[in-house]
């Protein structure tokens, strides 16, 4: 059953621009809370810069830890966005309409946060620019044969592409805001809307742009997490990482956590902004079905990765599996990971009542991302702890309070950036919401009236 109701263009404008024009009080409360956590993170990074990397829990042989786990996690989350938006646009799936902007915004902010992680990990943050081919005077260039150079290329491409994708789709909404504001705010939106008038030509080009940009961003999306996986799998020094399955495994894992992240954000948006007419049960239901398929595919890859390590019985692989299964705290983390990323949520999604329940979908998608964060932690750290064949060079890792604070702050940072975006721009594309109304129809079949959506051939 669909629970939609017809809204006029004025109602759509009013409700979807209320985040900008009539911000709810709760927005300020949440922003202050999240901003406070971000500030704690900034202080922790400041101390790290001032006092050095010794504040972290790093110790040989574990020199990549929480920050890089978190980078992989946020890049994973970022994959939801454009993948979801692009595939659903290309497929002309109706349930994309409320989700596209939120997904794209989540992509950009998650990606920006992911990009911060290696910079914090550097220690000497001010030298991060060395990765860019900038120095014409000394003639020294980054070594393009290193994965550390591929990664910024891929992340920058995805970040620039996703940001432009959002901007292009935002132009018509900026015109709506221009028409509904006054004073200096009006001047800002007038400048940003660039003189959009909504001519037939402009709308047509918007539609074509959506298709072309989706088609161009999809290969970038696949490449980004593949290249991130190659940060690990191209290294021969850590045997448990050196596997060809990492690229597709990372990509599908990213989609799993990313789609879950989009559902979480949609449920929060509905609750915070009261968008009950736009984010409806059928949308969450459709996304949950997609997530169910993605989760199964991800689990297949996880099992392949897990079993291949066991099957060829190599010592370096076996010790990592042994850590996962039999040694604390890894065995506890492993159990929590499997339960939260797959065993608890996926069977629940078989039930229609769960898929159509906002609180339950919120709960299960949060579980997925808890699990997926732990998955990256399990993939990265145990392999490093046991990267050498001799036991005397094995090591242990435990995160310090500084790392925990910074990681927590990244979650608050993404939330803060989304909240700030929502304060300036609509989180649901107004044009899309109105187009859904234009293309709606009702078909009478026998004694039933079925709601339908027309699609242009």
């Amino acid at each position: 059953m669909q629970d939609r109701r017809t809204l006029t263009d004025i109602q759509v404008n009013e409700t979807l621009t209320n985040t900008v024009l009539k911000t709810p009080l709760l927005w300020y409360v949440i922003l202050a809370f999240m901003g406070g956590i971000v500030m704690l993170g900034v202080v922790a990074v400041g101390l790290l810069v001032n006092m050095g990397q010794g504040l972290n829990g790093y110790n040989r042989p574990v020199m990549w830890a929480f920050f890089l786990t978190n980078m992989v996690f946020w890049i994973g989350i970022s994959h939801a966005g454009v993948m979801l938006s692009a595939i659903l646009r290309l497929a002309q799936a109706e349930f994309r309409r409320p989700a596209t902007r939120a997904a794209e915004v989540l992509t950009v902010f998650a990606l920006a946060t992911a990009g911060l992680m290696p910079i914090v990990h550097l220690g000497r943050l001010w030298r991060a620019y060395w990765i860019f081919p900038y120095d014409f005077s000394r003639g020294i260039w980054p070594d393009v044969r290193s994965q550390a150079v591929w990664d910024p290329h891929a992340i920058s491409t995805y970040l620039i592409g996703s940001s432009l994708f959002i901007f292009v789709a935002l132009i018509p909404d900026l015109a709506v805001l221009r028409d509904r504001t006054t004073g200096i705010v009006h001047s800002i939106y007038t400048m940003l809307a660039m003189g959009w008038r909504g001519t037939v030509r402009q709308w047509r080009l918007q539609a074509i742009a959506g298709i072309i940009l989706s088609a161009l961003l999809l290969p970038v999306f696949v490449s980004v997490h593949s290249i991130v996986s190659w940060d690990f799998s191209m290294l021969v020094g850590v045997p448990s990482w050196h596997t060809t399955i990492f690229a597709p495994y990372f990509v599908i894992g990213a989609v799993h956590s990313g789609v879950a992240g989009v559902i979480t954000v949609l449920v929060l948006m509905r609750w915070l902004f009261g968008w009950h007419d736009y984010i409806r049960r059928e949308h969450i239901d459709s996304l949950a079905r997609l997530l169910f398929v993605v989760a199964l595919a991800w689990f297949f890859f996880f099992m392949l990765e897990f079993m291949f390590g066991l099957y060829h019985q190599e010592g370096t692989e076996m010790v990592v599996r042994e850590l996962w299964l039999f040694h604390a705290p890894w065995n506890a983390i492993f159990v929590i990971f499997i339960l939260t990323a797959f065993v608890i949520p996926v069977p629940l999604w078989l039930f229609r009542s769960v898929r159509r329940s906002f609180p339950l979908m919120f709960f299960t998608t949060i579980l997925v991302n808890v699990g997926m964060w732990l998955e990256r932690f399990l993939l990265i750290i145990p392999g490093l702890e046991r990267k050498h064949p001799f036991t005397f060079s094995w090591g242990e890792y435990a995160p310090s309070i500084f790392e925990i604070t910074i990681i927590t702050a990244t979650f608050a940072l993404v939330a803060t950036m989304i909240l700030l975006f929502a304060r300036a721009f609509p989180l649901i594309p107004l044009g899309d919401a109105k187009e859904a109304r234009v293309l709606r129809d009702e078909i009478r079949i026998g004694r039933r009236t079925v709601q339908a959506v027309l699609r242009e051939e």
Partner: protein
Amino acid sequence: MANQAVLGLYRTPEAAADAVGNLQQAGIGHNDYEIMTGVPYPEGTFGEPPVRHKLYVFPFMGAMIGLTLAILEGAGTQLAYPLVTGGKPILSVPPIIIISYELTLLGAIVFTVIGIIFESRLPRPALGVYDTRITEGLIGVVCTCPEERVEEVRGLLQRAAAIEVKVGQG
């Protein structure tokens, strides 16, 4: 003599399509009128001709530029400072492919966006004759014509049940 713009506002797509029909029957060319909406209607809703554009050229241009820059970076910078590291060749094809892939797509994306803005005739410094109610659901048909035809065009737009007709600088 300066051109004038006449804007008719309509509540329904049918009325706007009638207005466009009236303009076409009066011999006004399709380059002289535009339909403005707050909603993306299917192409041809108002009886307008299909939109012609060259947007598809832009991604290819961008891709070529991106690929050139990628080869300059991937190969040129390594040849400029040929430092052997880890016994690897100076010009290694797989990394060049990876960097070329990313920068080619980046070029294509950036140029597509430039193309969208250019082909959408943006940025437009002044809105001209416009009504903010268009983003609230009204449909505007704006016709640019010489001053002596303003009254005729006003009549054509009015005849199609316009709720309001405005005249301004074209």
